[in-house]
């Protein structure tokens, strides 16, 4: 199968406009004849469901939470980028495009990334009109802050809760459409499979998480906006419910999965405290502006921080990267912390953490200034750890945060299964091998508000109304498959809970396919994962019934999919024998520990086709063509 990204011809800056004209339209009176299923209600899904309903399509939206407002987009703190150039500091669509391509280490598609930068300005207009309370300056205009990987101030924010406010904006638009009867909202419903008939996505099979009822839903197109798979590591900054099930089930039905090994690790999270840990909490990266990162020089140093004299401390980032120091980029900073801990110089009870010390900043600027800058973060840290960062250095450690990989989509956001569209973090399209800060919110909303409303219409106009109803035997078959799987979980009658398997898998993935990867480790993981999977299917213990609210059962289904997905992720990481962005193969680094790309052999998107459980998936390559930017080496010296 040849992967056609369907990139419009013509100059980069005119592609999207030209494409918008070339796409077919659905007559306003005919729109109501078309049904769309949207799975997920975060920034991408919520925005898409609301916008499509406004256009007149019949929309059904599904989420596993009790309300669409709870999707994990809500947890994003920092902000959202847009090329408004309100600060008159030289920003432009092209600059945002270039920064994003470069930040992604030249592993994303030019045309998609350019479109993202292009529609970014519309997003801010849209959100302000919805009543999103962005930060403003005293003249009443919008305020901006600067963010990693950019030299201009283009980040819009709402205190430390930008994701929350943007999501509530999309949720309010969605609520309006629900009230008008244009969207049928299904909460506490989990998508458990995709239904494909004659090569076209026709609908989904879901489980009602309160009653356990399994039901089918047919539509003319299915849109997945189900987020990332960071929880494959078990511990991540994702919500505990985030999972790969929807995208992985679609993968098993024919959708190719692209670049699963591109996972971003965020350097400043609160370290793991014990085996019982259920999730990790991010501390804003801005802390690195004033905090100094260090570990003791001596291995196994048990002294408390304040008793370790200055000359026995290793400020390793300042030592290794004198010009960037503590502000070294995310991937480098993360890997250095891991190195220090692997070397036996980690701090805290578990010895898996490094200090982020504000002592010098407090001496220089005074406690009040530090409190003004970081007060809420210090309070949050104190609440979680019980330690006061004004007097004791913070302990931080990297954690899985965002996944750039996802289902392969073309320029129209359509997957390799016709009629199946994928939006937001769930697709692979815009961030390449590494995502810049404040760009996740931008992509989710761009896809939902400004891309899918156009490209879905084009699909409908060209493909027509689907003639398959839920009475079709394929729906019945998939329903039966889902029921059988559920019964299987309940009937194994083993000894271990789904969570214990998830933890075991997470450890294998974190150790072998985490911040640093190498051939031996990846091969080991590919050996270990099937063994965990085997035990899972013979020794799982899930109590209760299928026809009731059963959280262990929900968890079992998600872990089962992670156990298959993880293997594909390792294959991808093994196959990509180069370092790029967040994918760091230890075999390919410069003397300074920088990622060394191999553009000659790996300038492509790796799209994997399902080949069966435990079998290596088939690799399809979409070559990346750079017509506008020159491939350069990222340098942070």
């Amino acid at each position, binding site marked *: 199968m040849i992967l056609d990204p369907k990139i419009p011809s013509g100059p980069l800056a005119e592609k999207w406009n030209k494409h918008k004209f070339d796409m077919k339209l659905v007559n306003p009176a005919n729109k109501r004849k078309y049904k769309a299923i949207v799975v997920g209600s975060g920034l991408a899904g919520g*925005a898409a469901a*609301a916008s499509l309903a*406004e256009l007149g399509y019949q929309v059904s939206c599904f989420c596993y*939470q*009790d*309300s669409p*407002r*709870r999707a*994990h987009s*809500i*947890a994003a703190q920092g902000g959202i980028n847009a090329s*408004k150039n309100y600060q008159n500091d030289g920003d432009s669509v092209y600059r945002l495009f270039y920064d994003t391509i470069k930040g992604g280490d030249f592993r994303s598609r030019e045309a998609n990334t350019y479109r993202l930068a292009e529609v970014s300005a*519309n997003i*801010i207009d*849209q959100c*302000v*009109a*919805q*009543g999103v*309370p962005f*930060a*403003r*300056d005293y*003249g*009443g*205009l919008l305020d901006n802050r600067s963010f990693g990987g950019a030299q201009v101030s283009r980040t819009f924010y*709402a*205190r430390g*809760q930008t994701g*929350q*406010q943007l999501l509530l904006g999309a*949720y*309010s*638009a969605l*609520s*309006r459409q629900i*009230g008008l009867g244009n969207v049928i909202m299904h*909460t506490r419903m989990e998508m458990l499979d995709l239904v494909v008939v004659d090569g076209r996505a026709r609908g989904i099979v879901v489980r009602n998480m*309160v009653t356990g009822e399994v039901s089918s839903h047919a539509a003319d197109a299915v849109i997945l906006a189900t987020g990332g798979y960071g929880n494959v590591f078990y511990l991540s*900054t994702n*919500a*505990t419910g985030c999972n790969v099930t929807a995208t992985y089930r679609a993968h098993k039905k024919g959708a190719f999965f692209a670049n699963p090994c591109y996972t971003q690790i965020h350097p400043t999270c609160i370290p793991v*405290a*014990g085996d*019982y840990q*259920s999730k990790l*909490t991010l501390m804003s990266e801005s802390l690195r502006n004033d905090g100094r990162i260090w570990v003791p020089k001596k291995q196994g140093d048990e002294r408390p921080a304040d008793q370790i004299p200055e000359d026995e401390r290793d400020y390793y980032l300042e030592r290794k990267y004198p010009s960037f120091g503590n502000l070294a980029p995310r991937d480098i900073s993360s890997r250095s912390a891991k190195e220090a801990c692997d070397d036996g110089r980690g701090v805290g009870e578990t010895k898996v953490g490094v200090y982020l010390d504000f002592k010098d900043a407090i001496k220089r600027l005074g406690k009040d200034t530090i409190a003004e800058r970081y007060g809420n973060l210090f309070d*949050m840290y104190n609440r*979680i*750890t*019980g330690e006061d960062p004004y007097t004791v250095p913070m302990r931080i450690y990297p954690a899985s945060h965002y996944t750039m990989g996802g289902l392969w989509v073309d320029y129209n956001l359509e997957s390799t299964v016709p009629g199946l569209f994928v939006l937001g973090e769930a697709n692979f399209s815009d961030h390449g091998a590494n995502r810049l800060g404040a760009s996740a919110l931008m992509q989710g909303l761009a896809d939902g*508000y*400004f891309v899918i*409303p156009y490209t879905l219409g084009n699909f409908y106009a060209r493909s027509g109304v689907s003639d398959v109803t839920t009475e079709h035997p394929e729906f019945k078959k998939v329903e039966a498959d889902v029921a059988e799987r559920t019964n299987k979980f309940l009937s194994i009658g083993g000894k271990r*809970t789904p*969570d214990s398997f998830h933890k075991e898998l997470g450890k294998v993935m974190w150790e072998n396919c985490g911040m640093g990867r190498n051939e031996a480790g990846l091969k080991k993981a590919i050996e270990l994962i099937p063994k965990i999977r085997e035990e899972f299917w013979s020794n799982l213990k899930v109590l209760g019934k299928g026809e*009731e*609210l059963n*959280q*262990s059962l929900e968890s079992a289904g998600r872990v089962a999919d992670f156990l298959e997905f993880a293997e594909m992720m390792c294959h991808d990481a093994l196959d990509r024998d180069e370092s790029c962005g967040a994918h760091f193969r230890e075999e390919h680094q410069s003397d300074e520990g920088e990622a060394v790309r191999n553009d000659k052999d790996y300038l492509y998107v790796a799209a994997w086709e399902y080949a069966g459980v435990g079998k290596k998936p088939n690799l399809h390559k979409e070559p990346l063509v750079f017509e506008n930017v020159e491939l350069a080496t990222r340098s942070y010296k």
Partner: protein
Amino acid sequence: MNITLFVWRQKNADDRGKMEKYLAKDISSHMSFLEMLDVVNEDLVQNDVEPIAFDHDCREGICGMCSLVVNGTPHGPERGTTICQLHMRHFKDGDNIYIEPWRARAFPVLRDLVVDRTAFDRIMAAGGFVSINTGGTPDANALPIPKTDADTAMDAAACIGCGACVAACKNASAMLFVAAKVSQFASLPQGQAERKERVTNMLAQMQLEGFGNCSNYYECEAACPKDISVKFIAKMNREYLRASCLKE
């Protein structure tokens, strides 16, 4: 530390439900409250007892999913903190902890500690929005908004929709929740066009859902994990009065 838990167990919406006693053994003071429940659940499963169902998702205090009444207080003893962010260091060895679901007629229990809060979504659908469609909006800086107004709107918009205000109120009133949304839009120029309809429709839906009214005990503010102020209830009452006077 070892702790004795008394937990509300209820098979489904029709079941009567009752408190059950469980032991939480070897609990670390670094655990979050929900991690303590995870450990207890793991233990229950090993003893063939069905685990305690409770809502949770982000576990960082922003999604609003977690919803436990701990020792009679929604989200437990720490002010301005969701239960997912409360850590066990606030308890001591030998403590008894009582854990119950949100209790309100409009929030029926689905199982154990899980309740149905879709009433909040229906209130939002009745008017918690600005009626604009995607696209065709003016430039974001075309309309300057005084910083103080934007800040007030943000103070109100910080609500996470968890429902602790309802659980804390003896009338099971949703006034703080509704007031936060009404006040956000009433403070901004974008909300002016529908100012009257919004407050009227949202309050009508609130009553329809079976939430009570406000009798000024301010329990809601005390329980709110985001410290939403009751001054917004006063603001909403003024909005409602204004809307009533302006009725055709």
